[in-house]
Structures are given as structure tokens and as C-alpha cells.
């Protein structure tokens, strides 16, 4: 009897499985590839912006576009960041990419040139979707806030490959009602000095039984704020080291380190490290092992008063929070600050904020004309306004008003050239030892000296390795440019003036690149010679 029951149960299992399988077979057999309606054009575009509201906003733009073009269908393809590069590579190599692709992950200059259509001839024509507006006769390029100055591909390939539909900035968000409760004031901190008062208020609040972290931290969010403060501390140092006097960050500490005019004991670096430590104290302990979603979660659940992140998170944070979320620029030490004021110029300028979410048109696009037209609509006054309002992302087009909800995110041009962070003084090796040493800076019993004790002895070797890598990569670019340049010259002699212009630009770029390649090699050799004789 028992045997039978067992047998029965066993067969139920397999019958179930067989039934499921049969069902799936039937389902799969029934599915015919969707009837291709020839009169309907499907535009596909792909990106990785999974933040709340972005998909809906782009769908809203698409819906508005379809109202005007009923014979068009628009398909939005969302691919998560961590697989985007792989996904895109296979699509491009396989020759079946979507029409429009967000440029970023998995894109290099040669891929861009190979798989995307240059839009240089398009950007000088007015955008037809701006007809009847003030921008009616303005070339498409000049309707962008940054004039497409930072368009992908422009710097090395001398063509426009990507069209941005937004811009991004970073801010310090805070929980407004909680802020008032903790500090007793509605006015957010404008300077670092005021921020320390907030820290103090949080401490008092916790003493009275609260359980609040001042700033939510994670390996993603913490550097956003810390780097901004660090870079403000090194503004004057950067100008001192900048012997070429270009007055911006152009890798000055790199050669300065090799000729001995820069080391880690510079008072500005110490001060910047000290400041990082102060900030770190007000983040949860062990924040370096927390992830982005942990910090966001802590903020949304009111365990943290503030969080530093980009404008891309504003919609998610507002949607998930039961309280009012406000945002301010990073509160920096003022020039009057007795401890930190001596090294800073003031808040960094955001004048060069470039376009973000750049869409490129693929060469193998099934519907290039339709897709280009949709892209033009997305970056017209009307389309970009819809996008910006629905997503709470900044617009990229000049006369589109910044929605009131994101007014604090609009780039501020009044500010000073930025300094640098330690990771920028080198490459991957410096970054690695910096990350290895960082816990010494922020842990309760750590400090600047403990940090330097580990970091400094390893710094020279890391700089050498990074310099070697930079030189190697520089050489690779230079040698590739030779072929392109000769080809452009040949085309120019064949009677193509545009190629001539590009050849001239490439010659300039190669000259500047080769200058720095040789100069770096020289610096490194001299440094190694010095090291050898020192030994």
C-alpha cells in the first residue's frame, strides 16, 4: 500500500514537470514572430538609466512624438549598468544594435567611429521640431546649453557622435523636517563651518536618545562629498604646481612629483586629509563596505540626515521618501576658516557641466532617419521640456526652463577652478593603494599620520607603475593616429576639404599628445636615474 502511494507521489512530480514542459512547448510553438506591419516603423533605443522616473519620462516623450507620427512605434530597451557594456558590444559586433544607444559603457573611440554615424552635418542645421519657437533658425548644436562642447568623440575624432538630453550635477541632499527637528533651524548649512554645527546638533540629538547618522555613507556616496572637499583644499596647491600655468587641473602633480616639487607632506594635502577625516567621522562606521543602495536606504528610512549624490537620484529619493527632500551645494570651508581656509579658493565652478545621457545613432540602425528625427524631437524645446519635467532631470536645451523641483541642481558657473584628489595624481595603482590605506584615515583610532605611514612609502612605486602605463597607452594612441592622419591627408589631396580640416586638427592633437608623451618619458627616466644614484 505504502509502495503504491510513493509511486503515485513520484509520478505526480514527473507528471507535473511533464505537464509544465508540455505547456511551455505549446506556448512556444504557438508564438509566431509578431506580425510585421510594414507601414509601422519601430524605433528602438537603449540606455541604462534605471533611476525612478527616467523610463516613464522617455515614454512620455515617445508618446507625444507618436501622437504626431502615428506610423511610428518606439521601443525603450533598459539594460542594467553592470551588463550594459557586454550587451552593447555583442549587439554592435553582431550587427543588430538598436537605432539609438546611450554612449558610455562599452564605448571607445574606435568603436564609436566604427559603429556610429557622425552627426556633424546634422548639428549645423536647425532642429525642425523647434519650428515656431525662438530657436527656429538656430543650428541644432547651438540649442544645447553647452553647445555640444563635450559631445562624445569630438575631442579625438573631430565629429559629433552623441546628442545629450540632460545634464548632471552633484549635491548634498537633506531630510528637511528632520533637519529642522535636529538643528532647530530651517536654514541649511552654506559653509563647512555651518556644517560642523549640524554635526554637533546631531551629536546632541543622539545623546538625547536619537539614533541618527549625520551623512549616509557608502563606497559610492562617501567619495562624492569627500572628493569635492578634498579638491577644494587643493585648489591653491594645484595652481602652484601648475608650472605650465593653464590654471585648471591638467595632471600637474604628476610631473611635479617626479621632479621633486610635490610630495604628500605638503600642508594642503595634510589639511585635505584632515578634512576627509572630519567628514568620515560623521558617516557610519565601516562605510567603505556599504553599497550605494545601503546609503540610499538609510537616508530614505530617516536613519541618516543627509546624503551626497548626483542629480540623477533626486526622483528616486523623492519618490521613496515620506518627507521633504531638499538639496544644497556642498558646504565648503570658507577662506576665513582658520584651519582649512588657507588652501582654498572657494566653491568650484560648474561652468563646464556638459551634456549627459548622450544618444548615438548606430550605423546598422534599421531606421536611421526615423530615429534621428525622434532624437531631434527629444532635444527640441518641447520634447526636452517633457523629459525634464517628468524625470526631474536637468534639461540640456537652452530655453527649456529648469523645473522648480530641481532648481538647486542647475549648474552654478560662479566658482573657481577645481583642485584635485589624491587618486588623480596617478592611475590605477595610486587608486589601489589609496583604497588600501583609506581605512586608516577614517577609523576612530586612525588619523592623517597613520594614513601617510602606510600610503607614502608605497606612493613612489605606484606613481612609477602608473606613469609607465600612461606612457604605454599614450604611445598606442599616437601610433594609431599616424595611420588616420596619413589617410586624412590622402583624402584631402583627393579633393575633400573636410578631411583636410580634420587632418589639421589631428596634427594638433597628436603634437600636444606627443609633447606630453615625450615629456613624461623624460621625467620618469630622470626620476629613475635619481632613485638609482640614491641607492
Amino acid at each position, binding site marked *: 500500500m505504502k509502495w503504491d502511494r*510513493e509511486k503515485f507521489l513520484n509520478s505526480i512530480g*514527473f507528471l*507535473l514537470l511533464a505537464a509544465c514542459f508540455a505547456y511551455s512547448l505549446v506556448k*512556444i510553438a504557438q508564438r509566431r514572430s509578431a506580425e510585421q506591419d510594414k507601414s509601422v516603423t519601430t524605433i528602438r533605443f537603449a540606455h541604462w538609466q534605471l533611476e525612478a522616473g527616467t523610463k516613464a519620462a522617455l515614454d512620455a516623450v515617445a508618446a507625444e512624438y507618436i501622437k504626431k507620427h502615428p506610423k511610428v512605434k518606439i521601443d525603450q530597451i533598459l539594460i542594467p549598468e553592470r551588463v550594459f557594456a557586454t550587451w552593447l558590444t*555583442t549587439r554592435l*559586433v553582431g550587427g543588430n544594435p538598436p537605432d539609438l544607444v546611450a554612449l558610455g559603457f562599452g564605448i571607445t573611440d574606435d568603436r564609436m567611429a566604427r559603429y556610429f554615424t557622425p552627426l556633424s552635418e546634422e548639428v549645423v542645421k536647425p532642429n525642425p521640431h523647434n519650428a515656431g519657437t525662438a530657436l527656429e533658425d538656430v543650428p541644432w548644436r547651438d540649442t544645447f546649453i553647452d553647445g555640444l562642447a563635450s559631445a562624445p568623440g569630438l575631442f579625438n575624432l573631430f565629429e559629433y557622435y552623441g546628442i545629450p538630453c540632460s545634464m548632471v550635477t552633484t549635491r548634498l541632499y537633506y531630510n528637511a523636517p528632520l533637519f529642522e527637528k535636529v538643528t532647530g533651524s530651517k536654514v541649511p548649512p552654506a559653509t563647512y563651518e555651518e556644517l560642523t554645527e549640524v554635526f554637533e546638533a546631531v551629536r546632541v540629538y543622539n545623546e538625547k536618545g536619537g539614533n541618527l547618522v549625520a551623512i549616509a555613507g557608502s563606497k559610492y556616496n562617501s567619495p562624492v562629498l569627500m572628493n569635492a572637499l578634498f579638491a577644494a583644499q587643493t585648489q591653491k596647491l594645484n595652481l602652484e604646481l601648475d608650472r605650465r600655468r593653464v590654471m585648471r587641473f591638467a595632471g600637474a602633480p604628476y610631473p611635479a612629483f617626479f621632479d621633486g616639487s610635490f610630495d604628500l607632506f605638503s600642508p594642503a594635502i595634510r589639511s585635505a586629509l584632515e578634512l576627509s577625516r572630519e567628514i568620515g567621522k560623521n558617516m557610519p562606521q565601516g562605510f567603505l563596505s556599504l553599497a*550605494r543602495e545601503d546609503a540610499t536606504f538609510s537616508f*530614505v*528610512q530617516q536613519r541618516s540626515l543627509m546624503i551626497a549624490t548626483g542629480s540623477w537620484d533626486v526622483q528616486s529619493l523623492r519618490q521613496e521618501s515620506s518627507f521633504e527632500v531638499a538639496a544644497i551645494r556642498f558646504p565648503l570651508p570658507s577662506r576665513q576658516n582658520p584651519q582649512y581656509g588657507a588652501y582654498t579658493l572657494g566653491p568650484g565652478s560648474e561652468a563646464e557641466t556638459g551634456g549627459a545621457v548622450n544618444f548615438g545613432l548606430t550605423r546598422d540602425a534599421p531606421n536611421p532617419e526615423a530615429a534621428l528625427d525622434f532624437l531631434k524631437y527629444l532635444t527640441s524645446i518641447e520634447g526636452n521640456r517633457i523629459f525634464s519635467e517628468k524625470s526631474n532631470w536637468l534639461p540640456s536645451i537652452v530655453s527649456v526652463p529648469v523645473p522648480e523641483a530641481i532648481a538647486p541642481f542647475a549648474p552654478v558657473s560662479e566658482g573657481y577652478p577645481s583642485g584635485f584628489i589624491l587618486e588623480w595624481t596617478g592611475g590605477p595603482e595610486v587608486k589601489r593603494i589609496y583604497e588600501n590605506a583609506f581605512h586608516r584615515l577614517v577609523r576612530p583610532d586612525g588619523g592623517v599620520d597613520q594614513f601617510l605611514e602606510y600610503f607614502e612609502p608605497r606612493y613612489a612605486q605606484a606613481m612609477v607603475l602608473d606613469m609607465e602605463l600612461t606612457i604605454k597607452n599614450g604611445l598606442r594612441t599616437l601610433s594609431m593616429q599616424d595611420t588616420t592622419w596619413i589617410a586624412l591627408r590622402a583624402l584631402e589631396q583627393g579633393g575633400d576639404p573636410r578631411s583636410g580640416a580634420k587632418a589639421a586638427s589631428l596634427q594638433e592633437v597628436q603634437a600636444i599628445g606627443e609633447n606630453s608623451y615625450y615629456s613624461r618619458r623624460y621625467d620618469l627616466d630622470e626620476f629613475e636615474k635619481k632613485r638609482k644614484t640614491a641607492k
Partner: protein
Amino acid sequence: MSAKPTAKRVKSEWPKHLVVLLLLGIELLPFYMMLQISVKNNAEFLNHPWLPLPPAGWHWSNLVEGFQLIFPYIANTVFVAVLGTVCTLFLAILGAYFFARYKMPFSNFFWAFFLFLMLMPGVANIVPLFSLLKSMSLLNSLWTLVLLAVAGGQVFNIYVLRNFIEDIPKDLFEAAEMDGASHFKQIINVVIPMSGSIIGTLAILSFIGQWNDFLMPLLLMRDKELFTLGVGLIYLDGEYIKQWGKIMAAFLVASAPLLIMFLFTMKLFVRGLGGAALKG
């Protein structure tokens, strides 16, 4: 099939149960967490991460949403997982039998061929594979996923199975051979019954692997209609503010069919095949 108890051993039974249950309890903690978080929202989860909510406060909507997310992919997933698992194991058993039965000429060479692949850590480069599949016109088809599952599963499964088949007493094979059984018959009558439970374990592993895989479907399928449920799950995982309740609910819904299926088929793997037929 297993040891029959003697009077002595019966007495000391309960401490064993206790230890096993304790260990299993810890092992099952993730499952418990998945269950109880799946009906919470983020605030509830944060305030009471460990304890379940009273049933009245459950957010059934999480499970409903999870179901809506998973359901469209079920048919494809079952298709790929079932076919993938069956074919993988079928070929792997044949292969393992080849290695385990005799030391055939070249068998060492073939073995090295497999071992090399298993030991070599590759910097994943999927593009050549993609180009190959494209040139074979294998893109955008569920059969390709089955094919890749079979190819990807061979090395590991053959490696494990070989060890087990080698352990089967040789006289069993010889007896079968005397009766005039072909090699295929020997596999059916000797190998499968004798290694039923390891085959079952491998089948479960392979099935789960197919069930949750997201990369290959995402890369190889152009049509959304051909995705399997792993693809649905990564969208949840990729979001920047995690809705833990919804994520757990989706995971739960996604693994429920597996659970039901295993509950019903385990018996076969555990003893249905192994016991009766050939007890030495």
C-alpha cells in the same frame, strides 16, 4: 537501503536530530528571510528585520507584483531548464562512462582537454562566442540556450560523474556484459540505478543554473518574448533604491516552481532509483 537500526542505536537518536536540525536551521535562515521579507515594505523591514509580520499586515501586493513579473517568462524558462538539464546529463553520463569504464587509447588526452577548460580562469570574453553563434544563425532562439547549457555543463558533470562511476563495483558491469548487455544497456541498468542520487544532485544544480541565468538570454535573445526569468530578476536587482520586500517576493515567486518540483521528484533521486534494483 541504509543501515538498519539496532536497539543500541535507537536510544541515541535524538541528539543527532538536534544537531542536524540546528545546522539545517542556520542553513534555512536565508529562505526564512526571503519568506518573511517578501510581505514587508521597506519601513517594516528596517524596523523588524528578523521577525515576521502578523499575517494581517502582509503586503500581498508584493507577491502579486512578483508573480506578474515572473509569469510571462515561465514557459521559456521551463523549456530551457528541462531540455538543458536532460540533455546535459544524458551526454555527461555517456562521457563519464567512457572515461570510467576503461582506460581507452586517447582517453587521457580527452581528459586533459576537459580538465584544461575547468582549471583555466578566463577573462570573460563573450564576443567571439557571439560571433560564432551569429555565423551559425543561432541567435534569437531558445534552442541556443539549451545548446550552450549542454556545452557549458559537460566538463563539471563529467568530472563529478566519472568519480562516481569508477566507484561502482566492476563485477556489476562484468555480470551485465556476460548477459550480453551493450554499453548503453549497462548505463541504463547499472550506472543510472547505482548513481541515482548523484545524478539527482547534479540535475538540481543544472536546473537551478538554467532557471536563474540572465546573461545569455539577455545577450542572445533579441525579442523580449524569448527572455527567461533571470532577465526579469536583474531589473529588480539593478535598481538603485532596493525595495527589499518586492525583490524577495519576486525571488520567492521565481523559486516556488523549483521548490514544488523538487519536493515531488526528490524521492526518485534519493532512493527510488538507487535502492531496490541492485543492492550489493
